[in-house]
């Protein structure tokens, strides 16, 4: 579970976790990994969204909590249907240590 969710800079979301690990997510990386039914086929699990269509300057407009388990990001490209669960966010932490 996160202790803090905040904007690190114009292009990065930061989450500090209960075990004191800090994850930094570049906006484009997060947008491309959206898990919603529009972006990932619900039955086959295949990615339906074309990552090449995500522009360099993508960023959130607003981020809101969803219950106790995740966040919803309202993106600058108008996309807002994805829920990023904290469990998922921790799994996709892009730091070197977590990637291994």
């Amino acid at each position, binding site marked *: *579970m*996160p*202790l*803090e*969710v*905040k*904007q690190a800079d*114009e292009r990065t979301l930061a989450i500090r976790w209960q075990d004191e690990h800090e994850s930094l997510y570049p906006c484009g990386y997060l947008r491309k990994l959206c898990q919603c039914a529009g972006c990932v086929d619900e039955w086959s699990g295949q990615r339906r969204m074309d990552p090449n269509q995500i522009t360099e300057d993508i*960023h*959130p*407009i*607003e*981020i*809101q*909590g*969803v*219950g*106790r*388990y995740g*966040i919803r990001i309202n993106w600058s490209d108008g996309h807002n249907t994805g*829920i990023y669960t*904290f*469990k998922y966010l921790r799994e996709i932490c892009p730091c070197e240590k977590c990637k291994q």
Partner: protein
Amino acid sequence: MTSIAEEQILNALKTVKDPDLHRDIVSLGFIKDLKVEGGTVDFTIELTTPACPVRDQLKQECESKVRALPGVKEVRVEMTSSTRGRSRFESATVLPGVRNIIAVASGKGGVGKSTVAANLALALAKTGAQVGLLDCDIYGPSMPLMFGLVGRQPEVTADEKILPLKAHGIRLMSIGFLATEKAPIIWRGPMVHQIIQQFLTRVEWGELDYLILDLPPGTGDAQLTLTQSAPLSGAVIVTTPQEVSLIDARKGLQMFQKVNVPVLGLIENMSYFKCPDCGHVAHIFSGGGGEKMSEELGVPLLGQIPIDSAVVETGDQGTPIVAAKPEGQTAKIYQIIAGAIAAQMSIVNMKGGPAGPVNIKWETKKS
């Protein structure tokens, strides 16, 4: 001279442990307003909930430990409480002012969930806590009948806020106050979503220690909307002892685990029937199911509620049994369960939860 005595007293109090939080009451910050004048010692113990089940035990232990110190003639202990709650509850956008939001759920219908929710709310209120009860059973709201408020309508303020009704010392809101009880409520998903949103944002609860949500049975639309829109502090699952009911209770439990809502425990309803004439106990729906499930899933069994014909009578007459027969055996069991829930909630709150409500407006140089 006085300062030494104070330290001695605190040292003596440090040997008193809160049995639920597993720490001494001094380092937990429970001791307030310690005053020593001659041989008289005054202090206040501030508990994390007015429903603390070990309230009297802690008071007695503190009194006797301090009285045993040399030079102490009289000990005066005041008991108060300041209910711990979710972080930043005062300024939350959803349910501001509500410290703890506890869902009462069941996987299956017919286990007496609404009766349990109503009586638990009353039992918590009896300890001095500020309690609200939100009947989220969209399809079969039963709170208006159980609280004798059929046909009553809540007031709506000029700024479109709905004021909850009051009954037996708690604040109450139900979809039943907005629809007539004779017509069934036939709604599709989007309507369910909308009405729940309204309940969570438009009802003016004021300051509450506990808001009890009576969920509709199952793991469907309404439950999902609630777990996504309301920052639930915890959930209790009501079940009956037989296997068919336990299968569904497990599903309910898994749903809460999936959305990261701490399951405070299980309540086994209709556990047994005790004959009022001969005292014989009959396990009508078989026995031990709740215990088995509690062990299997690693959640506490908060209590077992017997079958009591007075529960139905009092409920149908608009005064749930905890309010109608507070000295009866069933009401006493509810009181114990309410204490257990409050204790479990305090444990969860002491562990420190997630980062409070997330609400970020992204800043860019351009904007």
